[in-house]
């Protein structure tokens, strides 16, 4: 297993290297003179020249790339054009918020999507199946930014049940920073009041975000269960007298979930994408809203840093997913 994890980590390297190349190309090739872009508005020619030198843009391209890789290796993604602060530190404090949000959304999607998908498969082609598919696919089809606004109006403004925005109540000191995830930290420090506070804030954004994932998970579970139910071992289990409930909810589901785990990695990407709009509307201090503001202020450095950081996290998530997959399916680790 260790070997498997190591290999999987090493296999991620080419993609990460490619990501570096991609961001490098985006920065160097697309804007005509990156120095002018980096120097910012009102820059004088001397300033631009200084930037050009500082970033090594007068060097040959391969050397520039080496410089760039060096910068990235030192976690130095440059300073924001707008705030003049290192973009890494700006992203760093926003990252836990996004991670917390996407994971809660993912969790919710899995907790609801897997049973829904299984039931749909069990009652394949029944009205329930049809309804479930239309509803979950509806979740996938809904424009999250639109839905977010509607949720806000209904549950926060009209009913007043849930907080409108932000990650945590103003004025209440956040839980002791251990992981940066408020839900986890508050539980670790046994501050249930803080947990409730953070939980109330995460409900609406996480729900909005989870809709797309829920549909995907339900769909994959449904397909997986349908496929698994065709397998001989299910017929065998039935003939050998296993209880039907156990066949479905233990044996079949486990196989389908094993197959669905690989989808969760991809799903994470979709969720991070939707988070861009959802975070903006719920005023969630995450990387998504940072990306939006970076784009609106043309902060090239920040845009690229976000791309890079999310790419790396995405890679990590996919590695974790693969490892989990290997743990769930004993065949994978042995024959990768």
């Amino acid at each position, binding site marked *: 297993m260790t070997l498997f994890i190591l290999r999987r980590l090493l296999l991620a390297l080419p993609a990460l290297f490619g990501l570096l190349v991609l961001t490098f190309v985006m920065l160097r090739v697309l804007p005509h003179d990156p120095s*002018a872009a980096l120097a*910012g*508005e*009102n820059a*004088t020619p001397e*300033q631009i020249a200084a930037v050009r030198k500082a970033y090594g843009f007068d060097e040959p391209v391969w050397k520039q790339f080496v410089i760039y890789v060096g910068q990235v290796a030192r976690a130095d993604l440059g*300073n*924001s054009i*707008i*705030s*003049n*602060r290192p973009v890494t530190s*700006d992203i760093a*404090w*926003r990252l836990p918020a996004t991670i917390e949000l996407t994971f809660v959304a993912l969790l919710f999607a899995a907790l609801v999507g897997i049973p829904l998908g299984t039931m749909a498969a069990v009652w394949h082609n029944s009205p329930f199946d049809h309804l479930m598919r239309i509803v979950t696919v509806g979740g996938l089809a809904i424009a999250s930014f639109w839905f977010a*606004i509607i949720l*806000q*109006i209904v549950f*926060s*403004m009209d009913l*007043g*049940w*849930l*907080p*409108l*925005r*932000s990650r945590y*109540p*103003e*004025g*209440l000191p956040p839980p002791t920073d251990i992981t940066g995830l408020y839900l986890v930290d508050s539980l670790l420090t046994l501050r249930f009041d803080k947990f*409730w*506070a953070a*939980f*109330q804030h995460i409900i609406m954004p996480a729900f909005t975000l989870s809709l797309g994932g829920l549909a995907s998970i339900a769909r994959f579970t449904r397909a997986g269960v349908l496929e698994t139910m065709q397998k001989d071992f299910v017929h065998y289990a039935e003939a050998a007298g296993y209880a039907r409930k156990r066949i479905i909810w233990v044996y079949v589901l486990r196989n389908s979930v094993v197959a669905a785990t690989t989808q969760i990695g991809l799903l994470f990407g979709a969720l991070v994408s939707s988070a861009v709009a959802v975070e*903006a*509307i*719920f*005023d969630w*201090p995450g990387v998504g*809203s*940072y990306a*939006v*503001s970076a784009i*609106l*202020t*043309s902060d090239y450095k920040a845009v690229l840093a976000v791309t890079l950081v999310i790419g790396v996290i995405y890679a990590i998530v996919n590695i974790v997913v693969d490892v989990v997959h290997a743990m769930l399916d004993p065949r994978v680790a042995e024959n990768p």
Partner: protein
Amino acid sequence: MKRRTFLVGTGAAAATAVIGSPIALAQRNPNELIWADQLPGGLDPHALFDVPMQGYMVNVYDTLYAYEGNPPKLVPWLATGHTVSEDGLTWTFKLNDNVKFHDGSALTAEDVVWSFQRLLGIKRGAASAFLPVLDPANVTAPDKTTVVFKLKHAYVPFLSAVPLVAILNRRVIEPNVKDNDWGTAWLASNSAGSGVYVLDPETYRPVQQADLKRNPNHFKGWGHNASPVELVRRRNISETTTRINALIKGEIDATDSYLPTDQVERVMKSKTATVSQDESMRVMVLRMNNRKAPFDNVNYRQALSHAFNYKGFISGVLKDYAVRNAGPIPANLWGAPKDLPPYDYNLDKAKELLAKAKAEGAPIDRPIEIHIQQHLAQTTQAAQILQQDLRRIGVTLNIIPNLWPQLVSSTAKPETTPDMWVHWVSTYFVDPENWIGQMYDSSFHGTWKASCWYKNEKVDKLLQEARRLSDQAKRTALYEEASRIIVAEAADIWIYNTIELRGLSNRVKGFQFTPVGSGANFRIISTTG
């Protein structure tokens, strides 16, 4: 207690905790405000120079002079007063001697000198107002309370621009200087001022949040304010709808000052909040690139000026929360000719003028472009209204979404400057120079303010003269004359002067609007718990 009752009780409590209004969580501390106006991109007051920065600077930093009230008056602040030499070149400021920085050290003339040298040294932000007239070496401190500026040539708006320059505490900054950066990297997330409020750097999250604590030792004292705000939580809520909803819900105390006009009524109707409506000095302009054909034809420009539905826009879309402005200078500032009639919406006239332009050989059939800032709804609306009417007179207008930084860099050259673009000219300093002077003097070509590339030697002369004279009456006459020429030649399309609409919760008392900083001056604001 029976076990069952206990369970039910716990369940109910849990249910209340989840569903019930967020109990104590939304409870607000009495002397705190949550101020949801835009935060500046960084915190270095010399590196950035925009409206959000002014809102921050006004509170954390002090300046030699400051603006107060509406219309704004220039009042001595760190300085007790100033004198100008006969030739208008030497400006001498006397300082208060009881000013302490936040770290407790005394503010001296040396700090003022260093601050100006720093501004001129990093050449960003407000430096552009001083670079043409001031060398760093010509700022001197003959003694602890005297600062002397020697200008290269006479420049009357100098005094109006002095409030742009925050006076910084060099003792705090200098240990944090890296690579001769004047400490810009450090100051981007810290403060080094003497102002009425102190930044809590621990809480600072760029663009997102910053907490400001009251400075009880401010040199002006707190006698004027019986219940000052102890803590201001600055929060940025990027989504307008969310911001307004939060205000109505009582989660925040103030919005930005550009509330969508359609929401004013809704906020006013709420029991929790109100809208402060103040005529500002912020002119909306549709720029025209006077260098590009057919905009080089005055008839064409006039035709376009007649083709905008001013009333429809101001009364219909903006619900009259704006005042028609005939020319570049805000109508509520001196120098704007009061009798100057604004262009009216008259498509017949526009057609005539177009025909004239065509007769003069202007390529009026060329489709033209207008660049908008898409996240600013009004630029979009104005452009679409213009587009609709231009189509009626046979001109094709294409709308191109763009962003401020790109637009600003595109205005460096006439070739890259868009045919038309939409923006506002806000109050950076209260002098017609801020508007007409920097917009239509051809020596400013290459800056975004002068991006219409208008050139008229007579106007250049008038504006240069106005800069030199210290007599405001004489200056008024010069600016009025220049205004008439510019308006007659339809250099741009001026639409309105802004009424700033800021949502305020009922807890906020003593709010007083000033165009500089948009009233976000917490020194005079109190809360009602």
